């Protein structure tokens, strides 16, 4: 039997470095461990990476070197330590990978493209296709192509994939045109066929929570209760980065639909409620009434969850103007002792940004 120490070398990483990111079909667990850590923390030294992953200095050295060569990781400026020579922090290369996120709603389809650190490179909101359209993806494919065209030169190979956030809440699905749910079901395959880019599908609220975990307010949190204010109020429990939900149609009728109804009764124009990145005018008492019911419903869910688990943190996310989530978070924090309530940090379209985080978590992290 030959001495296997002297068999031909078997490099797992370096040999295919020239062929770019997509050639690495299966990333090792250790590489994912390092990338997950860098998604959560900016600027770690190799020693910190070793300490936090339990990997040896030499293993970290090999992994980091190959990730640098792939362009996924970059060196920062040397940092002078309190003693000894300066260390070089490592971060994800923003231009190392890109991802597209699509969120399907009963009024709009949001399309976003982000870079490896979650910065928005392209965003648009499309109206729903007309019921008489023979396909439901033509504008979508066109829009994704526009997004791809916005990539810097020679970066096409760095597209990690397309995330699709699909609503499953029966009440919200019922708001859209007839046959919408059925159209959504076939969309993932249609996009994949038309663009030849891998599509990852997720429940829309779960995707929004995943987005806050990867790029937003929950980046450093392990456990939290996630609330999303859309047409209705939705919630998810996140434990050790795992996102749990019971039945998809479990949502509360105290979202923006309820606000719209309340504003209509008071004679307000309500279109602005459904706009992305909009500013709401002063709605006065009509909004205050809704605000209270929304906060009370949120607190009821928090109380229910707290009977079983020690919940310390609540995240309140929405595409609504940032001051809405901020105010809800402030009130929850003031009224619930021991609870930290934080507004979501994903703007414009948390669901679409969350959808865009899906290809990254699937390709680069230890969380599946």
């Amino acid at each position, binding site marked *: 039997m030959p001495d296997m*120490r*002297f068999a031909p*070398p*078997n*490099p*797992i*990483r*370096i*040999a295919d470095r020239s062929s770019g990111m997509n050639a690495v079909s299966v990333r090792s667990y250790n590489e994912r461990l390092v990338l997950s850590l860098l998604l959560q923390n900016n600027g770690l*030294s*190799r*020693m*910190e990476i*070793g300490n936090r992953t339990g990997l*040896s*200095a*030499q*293993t970290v*050295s*090999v992994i980091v*070197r*190959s990730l640098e060569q792939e362009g996924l990781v970059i060196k920062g400026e*040397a940092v002078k330590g309190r003693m*000894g*020579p*300066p*260390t*070089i922090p490592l971060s994800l290369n923003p231009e190392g990978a890109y991802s597209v996120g699509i969120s399907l709603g009963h009024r709009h389809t949001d399309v976003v493209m982000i870079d490896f650190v979650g910065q928005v490179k392209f965003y648009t909101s499309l109206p729903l296709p007309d019921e008489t359209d023979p396909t439901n993806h033509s504008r979508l494919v066109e829009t994704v192509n526009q997004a791809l065209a916005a990539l810097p030169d020679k970066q096409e190979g760095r597209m990690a994939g397309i995330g699709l956030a699909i609503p499953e809440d029966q009440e919200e699905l019922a708001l859209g045109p007839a046959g919408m749910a059925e159209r959504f079901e076939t969309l993932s395959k249609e996009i994949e066929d038309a663009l030849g880019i891998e599509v990852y599908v997720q429940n829309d609220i779960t995707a929004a929570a995943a987005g806050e975990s990867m790029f937003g307010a929950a980046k450093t949190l392990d456990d939290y209760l996630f609330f999303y204010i859309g047409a209705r109020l939705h919630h998810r429990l996140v434990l050790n980065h795992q996102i749990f939900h019971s039945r998809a149609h479990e949502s509360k009728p105290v979202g923006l639909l309820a606000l719209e109804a309340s504003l209509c009764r008071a004679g307000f124009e309500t279109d602005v409620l459904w706009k992305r990145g909009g500013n709401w005018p002063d709605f006065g008492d009509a909004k205050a009434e809704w605000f209270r019911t929304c906060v009370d419903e949120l607190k009821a869910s928090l109380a229910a969850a707290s009977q079983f688990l020690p919940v310390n943190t609540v995240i309140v996310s929405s595409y609504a103007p940032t001051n809405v989530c901020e105010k809800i978070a402030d009130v929850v924090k003031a009224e619930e002792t021991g609870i930290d309530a934080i507004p979501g940090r994903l703007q414009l379209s948390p669901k679409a940004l969350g959808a865009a985080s899906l290809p990254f978590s699937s390709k680069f992290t230890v969380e599946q």
Partner: protein
Amino acid sequence: MKTVLCFGDSNTHGQVPGGTPLERFTHSERWPGVFGKQLGPEWHIIEEGLSGRTTVHEDPIEGDIKSGRLYLRPCLMSHAPLDLVILMLGTNDLKARFHQPATEVAMGIGCLIHDIRELNPSPGGHCPEILVVAPPPMLDDIGEWEGIFSGAQPKSHQLAHEFEVIADSLEVHFFDAGTVIASDPADGFHLSKEAHGILGKAIAQEVINIGWAD
């Protein structure tokens, strides 16, 4: 206190380009000296550079003492306990008399790594950190050395990649000296004083990047 063994050939010895093994840059000019100065007094640097040293080959002309493998083991034992071993070899393996492709030279480096791991000459009987440094490629014009190194130049350009493949497979640190310095035109494969300075600093940064507790 950390102890580092710099195990190499004439370019670790500090031989002046175009000179003989007795014409040597001063201690503070040679890369191990520069490297040690960068790291500071908490680091003890051991220079083990021998002109003509190969990875594993006993040289039929220069003698068996030129085999890195033969000398590495007693050398490790003499200097143990060691925290880090830096291996910078390979150019001499490309002499025509050895008929070695770059992949075999890399196998020779792998062999030395296995030998270090068998001895485990680190504090507590552990394996020291190992840093493989690929030498910069030879220049096309190597003057009167052309006969001895016939056919070596193209192979010298492949060493960095093949060394990296070995370093990856065996999970050790790696640095390509060719990314910061070039061989000196005086003979086409030795390093100038300036190159020693740059290399010493670059290797110091690589060693710091490894990360060392206290």
